[in-house]
């Protein structure tokens, strides 16, 4: 802040040198300072060392600032490798390295945990819910009588309904969960957990099968929201098409849709809406990772020039990628 120049009647500036020599060095070399004591020398040396260390600290050299002062960034977590609860790739998929660690979060998505079925009352086999899962759900169906599904540490039952019927019940207990089922007839339960970790699916086996080939590729750029990663459109051996998103991230929101656009490089939502688009080819439940989507038979991607991530709720083009021959 400016300290305006005023004249004080008290003692004037101390040590001020009015140099006649125009060289800046004339000001930097004060005349005959008294020799410093050992203590002053030590303090000066320590001060300079502290200044130097803080300069390195400020540059976050080797991440030292975050190591010492902590980080607001969430700790990296193992990403999911499938839509099931497995931590290893499903059978048939090419072997990959250990699950990736990522600090990025996806829109919460449902990852299947287990399927239970039986007739009458029973204590179901235990299953595990991730410690950082948002919640879990049971998608149930039953044929006759009544179905009561409860978790021991949950005050209200997840399901308490008359049969026949089907619906969804929810729970929030984490870790090992053992459901108590009270029923008079046959029933089936699918347990899913809501997680926000990225999903890194391996490519579809059909993408590397003989006769399969990438036909279009592009890199995502942002329109209204952040979008990064690469898009590759494959022609599969059976003549159908599939899209693979690699190292993908888009700003999280529910019900984002994947579409194709005839524009080469749409830059605004208006440009996207002013031109015909393909119907939605898939709804994004996971918003970061590497994902595969099979295209509906009636969508020919080669008729379009760009790929768009569209938010129907906000009527907004989040991100797009210009598609070029692969």
């Amino acid at each position, binding site marked *: 802040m400016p300290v*305006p120049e005023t004249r*004080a009647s008290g003692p004037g500036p101390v040590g001020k040198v009015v140099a006649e020599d125009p060289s800046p060095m004339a000001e930097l070399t004060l005349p005959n300072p008294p020799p410093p004591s050992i203590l002053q020398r030590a303090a000066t040396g320590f001060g300079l060392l502290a200044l130097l260390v803080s300069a390195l600290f400020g*540059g976050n050299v080797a991440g030292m600032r975050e190591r010492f002062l902590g980080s*607001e960034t969430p700790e990296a977590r193992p990403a999911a490798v499938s839509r099931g609860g497995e931590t290893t790739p499903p059978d048939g998929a090419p072997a990959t390295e250990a699950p990736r660690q990522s600090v*990025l979060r996806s829109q919460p998505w449902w990852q299947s945990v287990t399927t239970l079925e039986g007739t009458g009352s029973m204590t179901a086999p235990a299953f595990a819910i991730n410690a950082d899962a948002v919640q879990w759900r049971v998608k149930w169906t039953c044929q006759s009588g009544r179905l009561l599904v409860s978790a021991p540490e949950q005050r209200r039952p997840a399901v308490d309904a008359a049969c026949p019927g089907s619906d969804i019940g929810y729970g929030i207990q984490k870790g090992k969960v053992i459901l108590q089922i009270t029923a008079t007839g046959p029933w089936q339960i699918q347990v899913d957990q809501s997680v926000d970790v990225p999903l890194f699916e391996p490519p579809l086996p059909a993408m590397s099968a003989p006769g399969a080939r990438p036909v279009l590729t592009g890199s995502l750029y*942002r329109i*209204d929201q952040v979008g990064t990663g690469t898009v590759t459109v494959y022609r599969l051996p059976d003549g159908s098409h599939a899209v693979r998103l690699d190292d993908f991230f888009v*700003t999280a929101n529910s019900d984002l849709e994947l579409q194709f656009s005839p524009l080469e490089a749409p830059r605004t939502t208006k440009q996207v809406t002013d031109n015909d688009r393909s119907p939605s080819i898939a709804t994004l439940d996971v918003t970061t990772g590497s994902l595969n989507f099979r295209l509906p038979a009636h969508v020919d991607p080669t008729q379009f020039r760009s790929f768009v991530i569209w938010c129907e709720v906000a009527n907004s083009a989040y991100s797009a990628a210009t598609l070029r021959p692969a």
Partner: protein
Amino acid sequence: MTAPVVAAPASPKPHVTLRGEEIPVVLPSRRDPRFKLSAVVITLHILGQTLLDWKVSIAQILITMLLCGVIEFVITFRGQRIIAWPASGILTGSSVALILRASGTRHGDWWSLRGIQWFILAGLISLLAKHLIRPTGKHLFNPSNIGIVWCLLVIGPNHVFAQYLWWGPSRIGQALAFAVIIGGAIWILRAVRMIPMAVSFLVTFAVLTGIFALAGHSFIAIWHVGEISGLEYWVNLAFSPEVLVFVFFMISDPQTAPKPPLGRVVYGAATASVAAALIYFQTTEFGIKVAILSSLTVVCALVPFIEAWCRRRQLAPVELSESRGPTSPARLKPLVVALRRPAVIAALIVAVAAPIDTMALANNNQVVLIERGEVGKANAQ
């Protein structure tokens, strides 16, 4: 040491007797132009607390002002045996609190002490730099500027940040803030003959950031959905109230700015150019704010050279050729002697580290995550 830079008290001079020693007392004077500046800063603080939703508490502001005032008072007393109203220290404290923010502080938590240690550190660094880094016999760096820059770079974006470039949400608050800033600028800058410097900065900065906007530069900010680019990029930089406060009330400090009028114009343009050069690499609001503040740190270190250049221009050609003389080891001796002085070494470290550390922010993914709001409920800003 430049303190006490206050107006002369009326005769007879007041004093107190302490253990038989008569100690002069320098009381605040209404003629002291620092009161104008304090009035502007305090008005902005009031607007920030009432209409502008600033994430700084009254306790943070008062403690920083008090700490800086007490330190300045003690240093002045020990060094000059006078009891002086610590106007400079209080002003430094209020300036630190005007710009610095501790992560997690919410607007309306009037007495929150969250992150108070960062305010105290910034105040301490400001005054340490003022009283210890004096390579030309007076302080080289703007005290509040170096304290804030040190805190933003060393403590980092997880714990501190600078007041947003955009001030809101109240339109009335924005209008009042602009009125106070521009009115205050005219009121203060005329008195210290800094208007040409401010114009020089603003024009250079507006042109350079305008070029960046046309070239497609953008940045992300926690308060904005999506990237800020194009006209919005330019307006948010060139006409940000934060930048205006920086120009009118920080870089215009006559104690650290060059004395010659031409030097001041060069100083303004140089600060804007360094700021733009550092902004060029930044994609986040945090990085841009640090770049703007760091530019002053860098250019303050160049002020002795700007002043020397101005003096050279004033010399007659004959005198100039005589003063230059042949290059010889003898002429380099002052440079070697100067480089052995701790204050010069410290100034050199600060002047080199500030831009390098600022540029390192451009590659910091954590800043990007924070500005995108992707670090969840613990979001730093």
